[in-house]
């Protein structure tokens, strides 16, 4: 079916998976990198962790978050290849990740609502390393501030998470389609709420 794996096909159950990855990496290294590819990899190195943390804030599994980040950088490459604007690429990355995360979360919820659990799905749930929601439950016991953040309206949470990943107010406003004043209000409201919660505990 695919040339890529054809060599592996006849070997039976012992699939040479290390070989598959090595082949892909080899193929990539044979290829001379264009400016756009180099730029995408540079941005991947710089923003991958920040985008993963931001995406995890939507209650998705780390696996889903990784899928999204991968897709974000493939979209970025297409964006650059098409000669679209390069100013504010950082804001662009977070905006695409934000939209993909919302869509995937919606799809996951729709799916969980409409379908009964089969043993395959049950396996998947056992397989998962603790998801952000479970971590938040434990956070509620140990980590007071994150629990407070989790209780904020989603838009306020997004503002705060984006700010925590180093975005300026202008960029946050662009990602979330808000005014500059609304971003400032949201952030100061959240920090005030956190300060108050912190005072109540200590």
């Amino acid at each position: 079916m695919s040339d890529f794996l054809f060599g592996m096909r006849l070997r039976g159950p012992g699939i040479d998976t290390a070989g598959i990855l090595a082949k892909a990496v080899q193929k990539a290294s044979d290829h001379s990198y264009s400016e756009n590819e180099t730029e995408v990899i540079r941005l991947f190195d710089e923003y991958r962790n920040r985008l993963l943390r931001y995406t995890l804030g939507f209650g998705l599994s780390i696996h889903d978050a990784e899928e999204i980040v991968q897709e974000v950088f493939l979209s970025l490459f297409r964006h650059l290849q098409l000669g679209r604007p390069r100013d504010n690429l950082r804001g662009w990355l977070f905006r695409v990740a934000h939209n993909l995360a919302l869509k995937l979360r919606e799809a996951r919820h729709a799916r969980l609502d409409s379908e009964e659990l089969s043993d395959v799905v049950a396996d998947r749930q056992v397989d998962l390393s603790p998801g952000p929601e479970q971590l938040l439950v434990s956070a509620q016991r140990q980590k007071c501030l994150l629990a407070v953040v989790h209780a904020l309206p989603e838009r306020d949470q997004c503002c705060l998470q984006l700010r925590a990943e180093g975005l300026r107010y202008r960029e946050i406003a662009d990602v979330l389609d808000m005014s500059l004043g609304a971003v400032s209000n949201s952030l100061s409201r959240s920090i005030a709420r956190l300060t108050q919660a912190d005072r109540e505990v200590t």
Partner: protein
Amino acid sequence: MRSEEFHLSDQDLLLALDGELPDSHIERVTEHLAACWDCRSRRSQLENTIEKFVKERHAVLDPQLPAETGRRALLKAHLSELASASPSNFWAKSVRGLAQRKSVAAGLAAALALSVAASIMLYRSHRQIVSYDDALALMEPSRKLTPGAVREINLRDICDAPQNEDAARVVPASLQQEVFREYGIEGAHPRDYEVDFLITPELGGSNDIHNLWPEPYRSTVWNAHVKDELEDLLRAKVCNGELELATAQRDISYDWISAYKKYFHTDKPL
């Protein structure tokens, strides 16, 4: 902003901390802060809250982040695939080549430019579709449109047949277009999708629209190549007697990504 005989608001203090004060306010706020211990103390409370939040956030989230090497290698591989397939390179080169040849009639150039613009627009609109909704939606087929369908087959037929027997796998172009239509991606480029069998014919899947869906080759990590690996593994297990055929069919049709994770004991494609 309040006047100087009052104090600065929390919002002003945060704006000052974040370097986001409008130019017109900077001087007044700086002067007030220099004079006012109350406001400086509130400012450090805010800073303290931010510091605690940032620390907790890293403590909870960072241990979840996997090493980046595998994903980085995959991204590089995908990029070189995309780069070598990208039509925009081709068009850009042709247009440059044409511009250098002065003998080409202006009319011809204009006509060509128009058609280039049209192709680029088509390409853009198509790419947009692939990159957002559908890339995510199509990692796994819709269970309504593609529940999976099997034909009567016995184990000997499955295990004795030469693998990758092309005749069983051919999906007529008209049926492919029907699948694209059903999934709302009419006009998708066949090179971007494999119209794939949910239950592979090698495991008894049938050539029925209920068993077919457009699987993206490039846009996701869980792509057609990865599913091929799972199919090979399941067939081998069925033929070695390690797995019931019906179980293999059910697992791959219910949720092939979960099945891959289960049978390869991994969270991501190997």
